[in-house]
């Protein structure tokens, strides 16, 4: 009985370390996959939003040109400059949306990479911790004749 208890006491930290490492590996893979998935979705959402922003811009500029034509004012000089400024601002909105989407995706991808390497380190640490604990207990409970 004593020998069984002694074996369990010494062997359990190693087994626990192995299971812990396995758990960290699974978590790492899941977190990395989620990050990659979120990056792809974020990028696509940004492109769709940028397209929608551009459609809104085209409609806004067309409405402006109609209003200017109906007033009898020719579309030259100041009205043209105003319309050009408006078009530039609207395009900037769309581009910003695209940039935001790309940045978010890039961060997600980076996170996926970092999580993988952090996961490997945590797994290694768990194994090492289990071994250390087992070694400590093994020394404390070692069979002795002297």
């Amino acid at each position, binding site marked *: 009985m004593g020998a069984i*208890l002694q074996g369990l006491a010494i*062997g*359990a930290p190693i*087994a626990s370390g192995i*299971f812990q490492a396995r758990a960290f590996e699974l978590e790492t*893979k*899941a977190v990395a996959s*989620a990050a990659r998935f979120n990056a792809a979705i974020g990028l696509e959402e940004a492109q769709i939003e940028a397209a929608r922003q551009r459609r*809104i811009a085209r409609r806004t500029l067309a409405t402006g040109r109609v209003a200017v034509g109906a007033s009898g004012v020719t579309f030259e000089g100041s009205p043209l400059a105003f319309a050009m400024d408006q078009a530039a601002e609207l395009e900037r909105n769309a581009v910003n949306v695209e940039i935001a989407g790309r940045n978010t995706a890039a961060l997600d991808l980076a996170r996926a990479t970092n999580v993988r390497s952090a996961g490997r380190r945590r797994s290694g640490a768990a194994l090492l911790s289990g071994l250390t604990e087992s070694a400590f*207990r093994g020394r404390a409970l070692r069979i002795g004749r002297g």
Partner: protein
Amino acid sequence: MPRIPRVIASAASLGRRAQAVDLGFDQGAQAQARAIDEVGEAANALFEADEDALVSKGIQGASTELNDLRIAVGENPDIDAREGQFADGQREILSRHRETISTVRFQNSFDDRMFAISERTRLGVKEGVTRSRLDQIRANTLTSVAGLTTLAGEADSDDLRQEYLTQIDTALGGAVSSGALTATDRAQAEIRRDAELAAAQEVRDSQAVADDLEAQFPGDLAAQTKAARSQFSGSMEDLVVARLKDRNGIAVTAQRQARQAKFESVVNLALGGDYTRVEALKADLDVGQLSTVLGILDDKDRGKGPQADSEEYWDFYNGLSNPATAEEFRQKDLNLLAGKITPKQMSQLRDLQLEVDLLDVFPKKVDEALSIIKLDPSSTKKSKDKREQRQLFRRNVQAAKELAVQQKGSPLTGPEMDELLDVGITDHNKREGKFLGIFGPPQAPRFTIGPGEGVTAAARRASDGISADQWQQTIAELEASGNEDPTEAEIRQAYADLVSEGFEFR
């Protein structure tokens, strides 16, 4: 003009963001790891508790055994060996109990916890050794003081006595300084010493007084004791009177023995040779003895001799055999029957008187010895042969006892009498071969009695450390050198010569 509503899509949403748990993250694996960890912790705790229990059990067992060992070692009479004996036993006990614990950590715990206990026990042994040594010193000191006190009491001169007293003081002082004796012990020893010295002084004084009284009233015990009682009282009176009686008894006995020896020789002469009445008158016998001798001579002249079945013999014999009158007949002078009974009858009656006398000293032991050799004194069978054997045995025992008392200088104790009777029984069985083997194998004798050697002579020889074989070889050597009938003294001297010459005895 009606306005056609313009539609623009709302902001696109492609669904919620993914989480780790959506893509294979397993909480169960971590739970498994924790569970295994907990199992390990529990096993560790149980194992430690188990080992801790073994440590406690080992400490209890080792402590009990160490205590038993301490007691056993304390009974070893060799004080110097006690500490070594305890150290060996302690090592063995601790090692044996330590081995019941499997892990080094708990073995170390056992060592730590046992250290104080075993050290305390070891110190107990050491203390016991010290106490025993002090006791030994105490005993030696008191013994030496007792011996020195005796010597001081017997010292011939005051200077010598003072020297002994100084040595006593030195011994007592040293013992008190070393702690072997307390001041109370010393005081008690000094009181005993003073009492013994006073008693010894009283004995010396009583001797001097007895000498003076004997000089004043030579040969008159009544006058001597009367003077002693008038001059002294208490223990001094008792000592002086006892001494006077002892001396008088010795003198009277010697006189009586001398008179009797002379009478016996005259009777023998009268019975056997050409002894005349004139010679009998000149022999300085007392009236009764002279009358007996003259009667013998008259009978010779008339051609009559002692009768084998004379009335006087049987009167005396019956008187000694009857317990009611035995004491009275024991006191009577047998020599007065000389001429009226045969010499053999005279010898028998003398033995019977001695037999009665012997009953006073270890009577039961002598009777037991007689029973062993089939000479039971209470036997109703009348056998002349047995009676003679019984008398012979008693006479030999008596002779050996007197020799032993003389050598020892004091009466024999029960065990000493047993030893003497053993020798007597062996001697009897040797001479009376018909009794051998009847009562099982004979006991190994205390010493061997050689052929033709009496128990008394054998006892004397054995007390000198000479074996029967050596004695016989010495006799053979003497015979070879021409001495056919050597005396005991000659054999003894020849033995000493042979030993000094390096003679190799068988």
